[in-house]
């Protein structure tokens, strides 16, 4: 398996993702600068967190015009794998690879803290090492992670089991109290129709080593690595 971490100007979780893929998962991984136009046949593309283009205009709105994004779209259209984390999720929405939008957190403040997620669909290539309804702990760090979409899109997401993670309590209870940013239907992560493009606000790369407080996030990397291998 081979992975690529895309580097936009302003990406800042690029080295974190690269580190986990290389040093924790022992997978071949390269950085790809956003002005490049060749993904060199990688299996997995990671759009990392950060502030691409300083989040000017709107999070992810400028990054989607970077030259490499044409290749990322082709890569996704060909059925290969893409994961967008935090700002990467925002870029995927702006690029139209996933439906919906991310609004400012309802507190209007940036928020960095560990949250609990309930696995809503454990049959995807990104979640096959997790159990259905399993509760995992993964941190969030964003100012604009409040997921929103129209009613019909929500129905489609729900009907087709495309909502992958929901914010919840430690015991898996879903309620407003445990929704950190006001996301519609408590959505923390969704997958596309074909099931090869995942977008999520929480950062699995920050919870992939026990020294950092837990390894729940590692399960997501393990799922994709074992699937591709």
């Amino acid at each position, binding site marked *: 398996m081979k992975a690529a971490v895309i580097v936009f*100007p*302003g990406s*800042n*979780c690029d*080295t*974190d993702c690269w*580190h*986990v893929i290389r*040093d924790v998962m022992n997978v071949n991984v390269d950085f790809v600068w956003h*002005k490049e136009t060749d993904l060199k046949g990688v299996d997995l593309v990671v759009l990392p*967190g*950060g*502030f691409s*283009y*300083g*989040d*000017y205009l709107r999070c992810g709105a400028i990054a989607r015009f970077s030259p490499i994004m044409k290749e990322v779209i082709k890569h996704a259209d060909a059925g290969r794998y893409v994961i967008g984390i935090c700002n990467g999720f925002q870029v995927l929405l702006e690029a139209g690879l996933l439906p919906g939008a991310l609004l400012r957190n309802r507190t209007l*403040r*940036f*928020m*960095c*803290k560990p949250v609990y997620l309930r696995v809503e669909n454990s049959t995807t290539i990104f979640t096959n090492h997790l159990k259905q309804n399993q509760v995992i702990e993964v*941190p969030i*760090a964003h*100012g604009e992670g409040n997921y929103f979409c129209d009613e019909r899109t929500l129905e489609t997401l729900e009907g087709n089991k495309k909502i992958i993670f929901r914010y919840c309590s*430690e015991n898996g209870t879903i309620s407003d109290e445990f929704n950190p940013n006001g996301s519609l239907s408590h959505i923390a992560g969704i997958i596309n129709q074909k099931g090869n493009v995942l977008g999520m606000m929480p*950062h699995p*790369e*920050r919870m992939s*080593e026990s*020294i*950092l*407080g837990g390894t729940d996030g590692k399960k997501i990397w393990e799922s994709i690595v074992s699937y591709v291998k």
Partner: protein
Amino acid sequence: MSMTISEPKVTKELIERHGITPEEYDYICKILGREPNFTELGIFSVMWSEHCSYKNSKPVLKKLTKTTIAACPNSLLLVKPGDENAGVIDIGDGLAICFKIESHNHPSAIEPFQGAATGVGGIIRDIFTMGARPILCMDSLRFGKLDEKINKHLLRGVVAGIAHYGNCIGLPTVGGEIYFDESYEGNCLVNALCLGLMKKEDMIKGSAKGAGNPVYYVGATTGRDGLGGAAFASRELTEESKEDRPAVQVGDPFLEKLLLEACLELKKTGAIVGMQDMGAAGLTCSTCETASRGSTGIEIDLVKVPKRETGMVPYEIMLSESQERMLVIVEKGKEKIVEAIFEKWDLHAVKIGEVRDGHLMKVYENGRLVAEIPARALAEDGLIYNRESTVPGYLKEMQQLDLNSIAEPADFNQVLLKLLDDPSIASKAWIYEQYDHMVRTDTVFLPGHDAALVRVKGTKKGIALATDCNGLYCYLDPYEGGKIAVAESARNVVCSGAKPIAITNCLNFGNPMKPDIFWQFQKCVEGMTDACCVFQTPVTGGNVSFYNESPKGAIYPTPTIGMLGLMENIESRIPSFFQKAGDTIYLLGETLNEIGASQYLLNVHGLKQGLPPRLDLKKEKALHEMILSGAQEKTFVSCHDLSDGGLAVAVAECLFGKIGHPLGARIDFEFGENLRRDALLFGETQSRVLVSVETKNEKFLEALATEHGVPFYKLGKVTENRLKIDSFIDIDSTQLEQVYRQAIPRRMS
């Protein structure tokens, strides 16, 4: 049609408005052999301001750095304090750490969001200027009482500003400290710290060398923002200061992120001769300081400087403090390498001049000479003053405290709840959750611990860092307060399991022209010096911020210490919180009848009075050695220092390791019969920590303490969910946690 803007004549009023004394003006004329023109006057005024020249503090600071370095022969400082933009210290394995703390108080008081944001931006530039990759930030903040609307506004703005800059650039803000007190009303303190890591051989110096080497201007464009900020920082804040808002700069963290990556990429090419950021006094400071350090001349032409506004005159271009700009001295012949890298990152990189033989800084505008000054005279030769110093009139009376007049409270439960509800003591999660404190995936101890702890990937090492200063202690006894600031920050680092190795400091005081303020300054520094010598933590550099006064008076003397600790093996780290019920709790260190200057006295009796606790440096050092020795053997399950609020608050804090799942404790005193109960529970006697150990390690701990001459007291056990302290305190842990966690949010909502 060309338009020439006539420059103002240099008159007596103009000189005075630039804060230049008649004596200084005569000296300028002597240096130049003539009278300065308007541009030159401006240049001298910023370079000779307190902010850039340390004219009122230099003699005191020199003694501090010299004494501590001489007393620490084994320390591994790689640059002398003051010689470069930040201190650098060798940590072994070919690695070096570069760290510094700096104030941005006045800008933050006027415009909290941008003031704090650009404070963070500035300190980050100081670190990557040296060739180090910044890896973390911390902040030490002071505001007036949080019940006042204006202070909520300031806190909200400052925290959002720090978050805006640090989060965007991708640096974790891993901790810091904050106090709320009337003394900071109208003059809040924002001290920003940044730490970077590099290979030893990668250090870049801020000096210009080699006649003919090109001088590049890189980064953002120059505008009129922040005009004369350094001079602004060297005055007291008044009602009219709000009109100085143009003196506050506007930050762009995205641009700085690009600049950071471009500079570090450029470093690898070997094309850099020297580099300096344009911070205070912008282009002026960076050109004359690099030339002065390199003992050379420098020439620049302002027409080449990228500008964001039209019609800027040389005076404005030289004094602008627009952010995210750097001056890079490049090896001749390597210009193309530089230009290609900055083009990749979509940044300006313009050759604006050259290094020259001689010693002059020559500034041209389109070929016309507009300023010509010996570089060294600007950077080094400003007049230095030994200010008058007298014991403040308030001191004697304020230090008096008749313990017999202080009635012990009837209900200690209420006292504990009140202290946990004090925003200076309570949980700071409302603040640090706005900072991305995990990016870079190195943060091993999340904020809330005694010290921040990050790992160094590819090694076993850990870097611990703590900031500290108790301003009330420093007000009531500057010498003891300065000593305690160093001791407590060292203790914090030690509690995490790391050995203190060096400090940086940010000395916040009032107007140094007032003899009693200058006395506070001298005494605090003396206390710091003595502590640093004993702990073997040399001063690597820092910053002085004077004129922290509002119409209500001076702030408390606040010498903020940033203490660096090193852990050779991160597996020997110790968390600050109890981990499991059944463990045994010990108090290490002796408790005295000390309630002077305590949070208890302030909160319960409304008194800011008495002598702060006395600190015995030898006892403190013995405690450090004992903990570090125990950490190697994995003796402690947890270790937390006692500070504001004393023993009862410290025990409560140890319960709150996991949000929503507080532990409990059952404590019975077998000592302290001769102590006041309030002193026992809430006194702030120094050199004490609270540890928890597994039952099987009790004997080992007691032997270890005995060996190091540290008094120890077995207090009791960690329990599931209730805090019981003898017959005095009995409260449900959930209630305690609720109060502790809600204190700031409820005031901010």
